[in-house]
Every structure is written in structure tokens, then in C-alpha cells.
């Protein structure tokens, strides 16, 4: 027996209520739960009983307890919305694997950047100019401002890339969420600098340029590659739906 549109919507609501908020995780779980329910109904089970059993098969519990407001007694909750630890674990595992994939991809792009002679040429010229300017105390404040601002601007551009590639499909996607997280972390570097040093030496800026420039380039390339990959998947999903 095939499930009706209404029953499919019910399963989707059930997943959303159990905090499976990312669409790219939910589509797979929705199909799994729906197909298994269809099989179980075929074997004589009811929709509700099948859903309860599947809920538990994913590692979720049917019962939870919490203290009341006055912390005087336990309130027990027994339903398919009582506990979502199984789904939470599944999302965390997927998150771990995606992050591992992004790290691997960043490393591959970093190697590619290091193998590019043009990168070394530009990197060397900019680095040498910075060194000379600071050594002869010319335009030091200007250079400091440029490096400081680029630490804000480049990660901000990186974060905007996925939205430029696939604006409509960018909401509630675990893949894009994780892809932009590393850029957000890089944006905090200027804050950390200001917290640690009130007036950082110009050499701190040179150090930041030499260490972060290759990483920022590799990360931008990685974000472009994965945004393209995501867009392809999103379009496949859109065409199929």
C-alpha cells in the first residue's frame, strides 16, 4: 500500500518536530521512514504502530522525563516527540563526515595553490613590499588597515559565495551551513587580535598575511567547488520534486 500525500506530510512534520531541520538530511530520512511504513502496513501493522517502531529503530526513545517548574516532581512524556537522540546522533555523524571531507578538500586545494608558480610570484612581491614598507616605516598604518580589513572582507565574500551560486536552495542546508562555518571562524581573527594586543606590532600583520593568505585562497577555491557541487544536487532535487 502506498502512503497518501497527507501521510507523507505527517511524516515530514514528525521529522521537523524531532529537529531534523536540514532539508538535505530530511529527504533521505523521510523516504526511509515512508518506505518502511509501507512495508509494515503490507505485513498488517497500523501506520501509528509502524512509525513508533521505526522511531525507536533509529535510536530514539519513546519516553522522556523532566522536572517541573518548581523542581518538585518529574513530568513524564511518552510519544514519538519525547526524544530525538537517535536523529541527533545521525545528524552529528553526518556533520563529522562532511567536515572531514571539507578538511580534505581544503588540504588538496592548499597543495594546488603551493604548486602554482603564479601564486609564489604574487605572494613574494606582496610579501616583499610589506616587509620593505614596515622596515622603512612608510604607509604602515595604511598596510595595517588593509590587512585588518581583508581579514573581515575575504571571509565575508567566502560566506556569500554559496548564496551567489544557489540562493533559493541555501536555506536550512547542513552542507552549506558547515561549508561557511570555517569562514565565520576566520572572521573572528581580528577580534582575537584586538583582545590580545591593544596595539599589535606591524610584524603581527605581516605574520598574519604570510600564514593566512594561502589558507584564504585555498578556502575560497574549496568553497566555490563545493557550492557548485551543492548546486548540482539542489537542481537534481528541484527537478525531481
Amino acid at each position, binding site marked *: 500500500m*502506498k*502512503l*497518501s*500525500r497527507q501521510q*507523507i506530510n505527517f511524516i515530514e512534520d514528525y521529522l521537523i518536530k524531532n529537529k531534523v531541520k536540514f532539508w538535505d538530511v530530511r*529527504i*533521505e530520512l*523521510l*523516504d*526511509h521512514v*515512508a*518506505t*518502511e511504513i509501507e*512495508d509494515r502496513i503490507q505485513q498488517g501493522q497500523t501506520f501509528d504502530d509502524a512509525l513508533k517502531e521505526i522511531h525507536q*529503530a*533509529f*535510536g530514539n526513545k519513546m519516553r522522556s522525563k523532566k522536572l517541573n517548574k518548581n523542581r518538585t516532581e518529574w513530568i513524564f512524556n511518552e510519544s514519538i516527540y519525547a526524544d530525538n537522540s*537517535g536523529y541527533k*546522533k*545521525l545528524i552529528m*555523524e*553526518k556533520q563529522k*563526515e*562532511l567536515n*572531514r*571531507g571539507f578538511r580534505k578538500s581544503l588540504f588538496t586545494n592548499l597543495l594546488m595553490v603551493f604548486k602554482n608558480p603564479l601564486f609564489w610570484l604574487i605572494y613574494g612581491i606582496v610579501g616583499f613590499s610589506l616587509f620593505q614598507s614596515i622596515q622603512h616605516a612608510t604607509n604602515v598604518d595604511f598596510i595595517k588597515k588593509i590587512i585588518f580589513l581583508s581579514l573581515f572582507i575575504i571571509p565575508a565574500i567566502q560566506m556569500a559565495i554559496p548564496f551567489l551560486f544557489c540562493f533559493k536552495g541555501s536555506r536550512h542546508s547542513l552542507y552549506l551551513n558547515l561549508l561557511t562555518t570555517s569562514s565565520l571562524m576566520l572572521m573572528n581573527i581580528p577580534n582575537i587580535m584586538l583582545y590580545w594586543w591593544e596595539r599589535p606590532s606591524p610584524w603581527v600583520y605581516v605574520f598574519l598575511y604570510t600564514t593566512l593568505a594561502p589558507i584564504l585562497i585555498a578556502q575560497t577555491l574549496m568553497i566555490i567547488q563545493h557550492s557548485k557541487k551543492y548546486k548540482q*544536487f539542489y537542481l*537534481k*532535487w528541484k527537478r*525531481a*520534486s
Partner: protein
Amino acid sequence: MANSKLYKGSLSTIILKLLDEQGKMYGYEITQKVKELTKGELKITEGALYPALHKLEAEGLLDVEVAKVDNRLRKYYKLTEQGEKETVNRLAELEEFIRNMQQLVNPKWNIQ
């Protein structure tokens, strides 16, 4: 199988082998195929299957396809070129492991 820990290390190889034979499969289909082939002896739990599939996908061994089935969307997994090569290696490793285990558990018996 009472002790599911025994097959956990081989789960990704089982998935790769099935995909190599079937072409493309979706999550629930994999669990049912394993159940059918082992006559219900081996049951892959959902909590173990999806992390394994996501790991293989992140490693670049699996590719995904989306298709509309009935009134919902289905995510199919299939082997990439790299995945096909890796399946051969992992199967050889698993066969070697089974052979060694046989030697340890029952030295007189040999699968060859």
C-alpha cells in the same frame, strides 16, 4: 546475529559490494537486501547504515542521484570510479581477514 559488533568493521565493504552488484540502491533497500541475503541473520540498523553511507560519500567512493518515487523523493547511492576500485581492494582485504579468522577459530577447516 546476536553480536552486531562483529560485522560493524565490515559494514562499508558490505555496502560497496552490494552497490557493485546492484548498480544503485537507496538506504532502506540496502537494509532489506542484507536481511534477505542472510535470511534475517544479519540486520543492519539505521543508526549504523546512514553514518557508513555518509562516510563513503564524503570519501568520494559514492555518488548520489535523486529520483521521484510515488509522492516523495528518493536518494540513490551508486559507486564512483574511485569507489569501484576501492571495492576490489576492500573485498580482497575482507576475504583475507575471513581466511585468517577461520585459521584462528577452526584451523582444520579452510574456505579455499
